[in-house]
Every structure is written in C-alpha cells, then in structure tokens.
C-alpha cells in the first residue's frame, strides 16, 4: 500500500494506518528535526507532534496530494511553532554522531572524524532556511518538486536555493578547515 492510499484510509477513519506511515517516515522526520534543532529529545517530541497533527487534521489531507510533501509541510509548521515558543533558547549542537569508520586506517579515521565535526559545525552555523534545503535535498533525498511543494515555491527557485545553500556551506566548511590548518 502506498503512502497516499494509507493516508486516505486514515482520513476515512482507519486511524491504525497511521502506524504504517509512522514506521515509514519517522526516521526521516527525526533527522530533519535533528538537523534543525541539534537536539535529539526535542526532535523526537517534534516527530510525535507531526503525527499528532496528521491525526488531528487528517480531514485536510487532499487525496491525490503527495503524502511526503504534505507531511513535511506539517513538519515545517511544527518546527516553526517550536522555534517561536523557544525563541530565546540557543540550540547547541550535541556531541556524538561518529562518522562511519569501517575499514579505514586509524589516521584516516581521525581525519574523517575531524572533517565530519567541521562539516557539522558549518551546517549548524548556516541560516535555518538554507540548512533546511540542504537537509531536504541531501539527507531526506526529496525531489526538487517535493521540496517546492513543502516550501510553497517554484521548482526553479528550489534549484537556486539548494545551489546557494551548498555554496555557502562549502565556503563555511573550507573556512573552518583553513582555520584548523593554520
């Protein structure tokens, strides 16, 4: 059963089908929120909130609409509400997320860990709207059309935004690498 059919069933009152959608998408949502908040516990709560809202506003789902894009629209709203409520709090990137290091020599592993840490720092320092398009295009593997639907803009605009965001991330990352080297 595809996502759209499952959501139509939820909309029609078969609330149990939400479990199927949760199992398929909770990880992607969690990663999306984790990149935006840098906080695991908050990200898990926001995932819960997304599915709670999907349940609550299931009647607003339009059959024929891509579920993934609709879900991330809900996720985006949930994150915006969270950001407003916690405006005064500054997100501190959590430790962890060791880089995959299987079958690497120890010196290369150390270098990879360093680069991964710098890349995470660079990503965390990005403006939220730019970080968001990188997360969507790279980590969530959303198509530009889907991102456009989530962000409510044209596909062409997404193309430009992703490029600019990746450009800025590259600049930030190599600047950090330069600082470390010097």
């Amino acid at each position, binding site marked *: 059963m595809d996502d759209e059919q499952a959501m139509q069933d939820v909309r029609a009152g078969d609330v149990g089908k939400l479990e199927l959608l949760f199992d398929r998408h*909770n990880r992607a949502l969690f990663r999306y929120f984790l990149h935006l908040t840098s906080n695991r516990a908050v990200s898990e709560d926001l995932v*819960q909130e997304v599915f709670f809202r999907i349940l609550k506003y299931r009647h607003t789902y339009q059959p024929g609409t891509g579920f993934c894009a609709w879900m991330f629209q809900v996720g985006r709203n949930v994150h915006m509400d969270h950001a407003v409520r916690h405006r005064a709090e500054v997100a501190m990137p959590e430790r962890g997320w060791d880089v995959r290091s299987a079958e690497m020599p120890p010196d290369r592993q150390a270098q990879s860990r360093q680069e991964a840490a710098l890349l995470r720092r660079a*990503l965390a320092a990005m403006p939220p709207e730019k970080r968001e398009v*990188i997360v969507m295009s*790279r980590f969530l593997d959303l198509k530009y059309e889907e991102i456009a639907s989530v962000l409510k803009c044209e596909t062409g605009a997404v*193309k430009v935004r992703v*490029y600019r965001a*990746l*450009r800025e991330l590259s600049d930030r990352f190599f600047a950090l690498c330069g600082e470390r080297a010097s």
Partner: protein
Amino acid sequence: MICERVREQIPECLAGRLDSASRERLLAHLEACPACRAELAEMNAVWRGLGSLPEPEPDPAMRARFLEVIEAYQAGRASGLGRQAEGLPHSRHVWQAVLAFALLMVGVFLGRFVTQPRGASPDVAQLQGQVESLRQLVTLSLLQEQSPSSRLRGVTYSYQMAQPDAQVEQALLYAVNHDSNVNVRLSAVDALEKYGANPQIRRALADAVPVQDSPLVQIALMDLLVELNDKEAAPTLRQLAQDAQADNQVRQHAAWAIQRMEVSQ
C-alpha cells in the same frame, strides 16, 4: 552568466538527478571552464562529506510513545461510541471516559520524561496542552460521526475543554445550525454558553433563532441569549414576537425574552 546557470545544476548533478542532455552540457562546460571545475570539486567534497555523516536513529521508545497516543485516541473514541451501544446514563460515563483518557495521556507523557531523563525538565504546560488537544480531537471527531448519539457525546466532550477553543466553537455552531437531530442541536446550544463572551458567537446565536425549524431549539436559543443578556439580539426577537407565521409558543417566548432583557437593563 552561463557559468552561473551551469553552477546551479551542480547539486542536481551530484545527486544524480540531472537528465543526460543537461549532464552532457554541464560536462562540456566544465572541460572548458577551470573556475566551474573548481566549484564542482569543492561542492563534491562537501556533498560526499554530508553523505558520510552518520544517520542518527531515534530512540525506539519514540515508537512506543506514538502507539500509546494512538491507543489513547482510539480508546477515547471507543469510550464515547461504546456508551451509545450500552445505553447507559450519560454524564457519569462520559466523565469516566474523559478522566481515563486524560489520566492515560498524563501517564504516557510523564512516563516518557521519567523513564528517559535527558536533562530536560518535564514541561507541565506542554503536557496539559497535549491533553487539551486530545480532548479537542475527540470532540471534533465525535461531532463528525454519523450517529446522533455519537455527536451528542462530542457535544458533551466539549465541556471538558479547559479553555474555549475556536475549532470546537465553530463545530458547535455548525451543529446548532445544520445538525439534523434536534437533541444534538439543543445540546450544542447549551454547550455554546461558555463561548458567550464572544460577540460573534452571540450574533450567530441570535441569527439562528428565526431560521431554526424546531420551536424547542428556538426557545433554547432565546433562553441562552437572555442568560447572556445579549441586548443586541432584541431587534431579532422583537421581529419574531410579531411574526404571525412563527409558532405561538415561540412568539410568546420571544416576547418574554425581550421583557427579561429590558428588566435587566
């Protein structure tokens, strides 16, 4: 200009989403343009670096919490619907269902904080908000049910909302104006009393009086308007009191309502 356009395609190229014709054009340009090649190399390094970052997994308990919320929601609905089949007295069992539902939600969310200390203190306000939202959810869902008894449960659930809620308010108003069942309409009128501070609701209630086809509902609406002392409804009621087409009891009640409003001035 051409470089700018070409570079905008780099992320798509790295993601493997560029069609073959565009990819060929990009490669042809890169062969002749060292600056764009350098850009591609940098972005490629970052793109690959992002891909090698680990993909953190949520705590398995998150799924358990999600299932508990779904179960609580379904239990809330079932308790509302189940009562209908049993034909038991109304208020006591709805109260029990609501209390059980609320307690379950309190348990779910407190349990989530207690069993997983992560340095964050329990946010009681958030918890209350969640319980309130679930009550709202059950209310709205029941109000959309086919069965009049279920919709009556929905109206009763609305009393449990600690704070007036715009969506519930609109759903109740819709029930007053459009529900096919007189009992549901009467209950919805009563439930709207707590929303009486809103002038738009008072106006909507007054507008509903002359268009209702049930004298009982008309009288209930007038009683509520008197209770709310909504003097702005007086012209509508005066017109109704003089309407020869209206039910005799309704006309008499409208006259009484106007009198009460004038006395309380």
